[in-house]
């Protein structure tokens, strides 16, 4: 409890600012400064959120979204790290793929949905693959960069002390690029959430995106905000979860974004 007290004291601004914002919103909606039809009070939204949870609606949609993110992220991570490492190690591959990636990467991910639908069976698989596209590029980019930014003196020293071939890769090049890889994974996971919600809005009837859009269309504004809140929470949990994992797995990295 005392530890929590100290933590609270240290993070008083980070904890306080959302509370102040919610308080201001509550007050503005209650006094009519904001129109309650569009900006219901946070307390009302909380009640609706509890209802969505109690009747099971929320869990079905949340589960669908999480499963999609899980598959998409796994796909993007495996391919992104693999191809990123290969691009970092082999110049020819890097020079061949860089221009292709540079052209594809800025395209808004949602536009891949119809295209992906031609290549793989439409439905869940198409949703997952579309969600993975942007994450894949981000992870591949940061991984390539991770290999490239390793201090050459360190690599030279490792070689001098007898690390060659596979050993050089596992003991030096891979750990040396891990901080960058983790940055890519964090960004990639964030983008997977953004894209999956967008894809769910346009193409599915299940998932948080679908729930949000449906609530909006039938003007259940409180449910829309409740879903909003859940999506934000999922994003925060995923991001900080991965940051905590990094702090655990890479204790030698000085500045982990989990502060």
């Amino acid at each position, binding site marked *: 409890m005392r530890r929590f007290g100290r933590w609270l004291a240290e993070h008083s601004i980070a904890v306080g600012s959302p509370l102040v914002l919610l308080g201001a919103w509550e007050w503005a909606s209650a006094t009519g400064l904001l129109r309650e039809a569009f900006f219901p009070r946070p307390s009302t939204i909380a009640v609706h959120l509890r209802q969505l949870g109690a009747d099971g609606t929320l869990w079905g949609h949340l589960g669908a979204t999480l499963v999609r993110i899980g598959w998409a992220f796994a796909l993007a991570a495996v391919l992104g790290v693999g191809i990123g490492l290969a691009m970092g190690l082999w110049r020819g591959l890097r020079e061949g793929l860089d221009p292709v990636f540079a052209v594809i990467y800025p395209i808004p991910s949602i536009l891949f949905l119809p295209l992906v639908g031609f290549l793989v069976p439409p439905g869940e698989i198409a949703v997952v693959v579309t969600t993975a596209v942007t994450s894949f590029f981000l992870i591949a980019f940061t991984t390539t960069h991770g290999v490239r930014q390793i*201090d*050459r*003196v*360190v690599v*030279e*020293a*490792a*070689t*001098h*002390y*007898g*690390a*060659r071939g596979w*050993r050089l890769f596992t*003991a*030096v090049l891979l*750990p*040396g690029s*891990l901080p960058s890889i983790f940055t890519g994974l964090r960004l990639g996971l964030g983008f997977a959430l953004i894209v999956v919600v967008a894809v769910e809005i346009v193409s599915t009837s299940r998932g948080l995106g679908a729930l949000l859009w449906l609530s909006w269309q039938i003007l259940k504004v409180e449910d829309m905000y409740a879903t909003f809140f859940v999506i934000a929470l999922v994003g925060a949990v995923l991001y900080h979860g991965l940051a905590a994992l990094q702090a655990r797995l*890479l*204790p*030698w990295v*000085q500045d982990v974004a989990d502060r």
Partner: protein
Amino acid sequence: MPTPVPKVLVNEVSVTFESHRRSVLALDRISLQAHAGEFLCVVGPSGSGKSTLLRVLAGLLRQSAGEVRIEADHPGSPLTAMVFQEHALLPWRTVRDNVTFGLENRGVGRAEREARAREMLAMVGLTRFAAHYPHQLSGGMKQRVGIARALASDPEVLLMDEPLAALDAQTRTIMQEELLRIWAALGKTVVYVTHSLEEALLLGDRIVLLSARPGRVSRIYPVDLGRPRGLEVRASPAYGALLETIWARLREEVVRAMAEDRGPDPDRASA
């Protein structure tokens, strides 16, 4: 005094760096020897190829001409182990695992590695920091780890590339004394590159003075200041006289180096 046994033989070694535009001669027919157990210092103006010479000895760079021989007395030991200027530790390995890295690569068993790490960390005074990561250490401590790593692999010849150059003056002085103590305890052959004449006089048995680019052996000076040697040697008249003599010559070379074109420094170009 016993007859010196040659340990490192450098014979007419030249190094040329080829870039796409031009080729730069960094070392020009360098010949020198280091005797077994000798502390040999290499001094010269920047651009004289001091580091290049060390990298050739370390096998990190191939000479363009000439021959390098290192007499191996202990089969199974690496010929050289280098202490790098920027310590070059692996940030993801603890102090202990950095020290044992070379042994691990050679397939030395765990128990022996641990014993060796304990011994070397005790030698450099870092026993309590075995489980720390490099980023938790000060500059001087990191360089101690670098020295322990080199010693742990028990090389025939210890190579040191301006290992104290990045440290503050007080830390450097303390590390110089530590180096003398460790060298006296282990009796290793050392080839030590430095830009500091004072450091070379304090540490070395002989000083090889290299000329400005291209690096040639300008002169070799024996340092007859006795052993064991400590910081108090700086107060002796012999020290002052030798410093004057070598500095007069080094000064010429430095001035010449400054007058030369300010093209790429081969020490840097190769790093």
